């Protein structure tokens, strides 16, 4: 039963990405490699961040602003990495196109590019879920559960799985939005992504307040759905444009 609970938490956090992985990514080896490398990139960013913050941890204060600074720096660093990822991807795209030409295969289609962006985002999302949710899940397989002080209505594992799901969604689809924004030179999309990421991170600060999770999590899901919606609309628009051309 407890094993079932543990697996349930894991699937709650990673189920959607798993199905995305199986249905879209796993057919194309290059996308798998993209997922792996973007996961690695996220891990490295996390290690660098924790190296920087190691001296200040653990934060004993009950005030929220040190955590705010922590999240601010983390998000800023990761958004910087996203730009880097984009630059690398640009070069990769050129090489892939040159390669496709030589093989007399079609160049990268719009959907291919979007899939690469999706794979990159999925890598970030999976890394987030794995390190923030899954790796803390070991005790959940045991006979007990754990409740956080601040949010004592729901078990901590369930809570972190729910939050992780929202973040997986945000990470996955904001990468698609960001890549499209960069490709089109669309300033709005370029700013949309970091802002969404920052807002989502800041919203988790609400959880610090006693009982704050009842407010914070719905807000977080609102952000996630907004991202999803925006991404869907943008992809739809581009596909329609692409077809009419």
């Amino acid at each position: 039963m407890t094993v079932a609970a543990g697996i349930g938490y894991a699937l709650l956090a990673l189920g959607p990405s798993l199905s995305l992985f199986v249905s879209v990514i796993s057919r194309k080896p290059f996308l798998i490699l993209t997922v792996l490398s973007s996961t690695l990139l996220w891990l490295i960013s996390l290690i660098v961040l924790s190296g920087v913050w190691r001296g200040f941890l653990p934060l004993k204060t009950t005030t929220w602003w040190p955590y705010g600074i922590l999240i601010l720096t983390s998000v800023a660093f990761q958004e910087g990495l996203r730009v880097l990822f984009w630059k690398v991807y640009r070069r990769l795209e050129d090489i892939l196109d040159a390669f496709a030409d030589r093989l007399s295969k079609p160049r990268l289609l719009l959907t291919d590019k979007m899939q690469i962006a999706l794979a990159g985002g999925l890598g970030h999302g999976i890394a987030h879920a794995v390190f923030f949710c899954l790796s803390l899940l070991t005790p959940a397989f045991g006979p007990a559960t754990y409740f956080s002080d601040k949010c004592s209505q729901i078990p901590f594992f369930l809570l972190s799985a729910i939050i992780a799901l929202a973040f997986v969604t945000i990470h996955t689809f904001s990468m698609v939005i960001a890549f499209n924004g960069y490709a089109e030179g669309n300033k709005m999309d370029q700013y949309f992504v970091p802002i969404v990421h920052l807002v989502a991170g800041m919203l988790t600060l609400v959880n610090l307040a006693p009982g704050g999770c009842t407010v914070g999590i719905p807000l977080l899901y609102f952000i996630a759905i907004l991202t999803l919606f925006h991404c869907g609309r943008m992809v739809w628009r581009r596909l329609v444009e692409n077809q009419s051309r």
Partner: protein
Amino acid sequence: MESSILESIGVEIIGVMSPVSICMFLVVLLVYSLSSSDPFSPASVDTIRTAANLVYVENPSDSASQKLEGALLNALVFVILIALVTFLLVLLYYYNFTNFLKNYMRFSAFFVLGTMGGSIFLSVIQKFSIPLDSITCFLLLFNFTIVGVLSVFSGGIPILLRQTYMVCLGIIVAAWFTKLPEWTTWVLLVALAVYDLVAVLAPGGPLKLLVDLASTRDDELPALVYEARPTVTRTGQIGARSLGLLVAGVSDSSSIELQAVSRDNNVNRNLNEGRTNSDYSAVTMEDFRNEEVHSDREDGERSPLVSNVRERHSSSIPSSEARQLNNRDPEIVGEETSPLVEMFEFGNEGRQMRRGDVEITDRGIKLGLGDFVFYSVLVGRAAMYDLMTVYACYLAIISGLGCTLILLSVCRRALPALPISIALGVTFYFLTRLLMEPFIVGTATNLMMF
């Protein structure tokens, strides 16, 4: 063509990565399920003497410097043993004791699958209290072992079965290795990576000698090497092959070394009963050697076709992009050479029921079993600390493997598969453990994420 380029790039890399991932995953699962019940079981196992801790038996109460010293000595002795056995193998191979080597390899596979696999099987049964009578258990184990021995060392067996048994062997040996004490494991892994580097790349290194020797011969030798599954599309297949040749030489050699080591350990453990280790280890080494030889020979056979293609290809590619393009070289090669390749395949199909040639054609990248084992040992050791370190080490090892494969396609010679992956894995383990974990736990338990 409908299929986009995304589907054809990296097929061969994934073909190697997925079995390694499966192997690591199963080892982690095994370590978790077997160790979670009684946290003190590793300590009791530690008292077993193996070749890997001949000098020093780690004691939890020892001081850090004592542990480090002991672990260094252990690793040194172990690596020296391996080197000796490898040289012995080279000698045996040089004087054409091929049949002896082959049979010994069969025996050692039987031994590993039967005794070590059997004891793991038993402990799994005990752990989950599966009701199973001894006769059924024995029958199951016997059949499993016999099929394993047949599939590992003879032709005419489905490649999938062969691959499965290779992964099984890797899992079993790695699961035994995880019972080594902590400090010894880490020092040993690093020492092996260094040894691998030296033995494969240094001019007088035993593995290099073996490879050179093997490439001058045309013997048919069995191999304990994982062969990446032949891919479905023709271009992919060719790509895999051409990359495979390069990789095969490289990783085979490393794998051979690794395997020898692992077997030594197993043997030694088994030797609790009082046998001398040297015989067993020698045999295993021979096996490894055989593998290497095999791969080399394949290289030799293929080389005309492949090298032609490659030359053409490389001439057409500007050198600045060489690294990235090299990854995709195989595909291009495939397209360009399709007539040749088709003929090749045709011939092979005719002989499919036989050994040798067919195998060569069907093979993609090859990765030594030893690499499987030691990757899994690292991950398994990480699993004893926390899940977080497991993920970090997994990512590090896989990316190291990817780097090795890329290097392989650049260098086109046998490369050791261990050093990059082990270095990355160890670094990430300690970074994660020392830096990341307090950070993550501190933020996540406050329900803060980003």
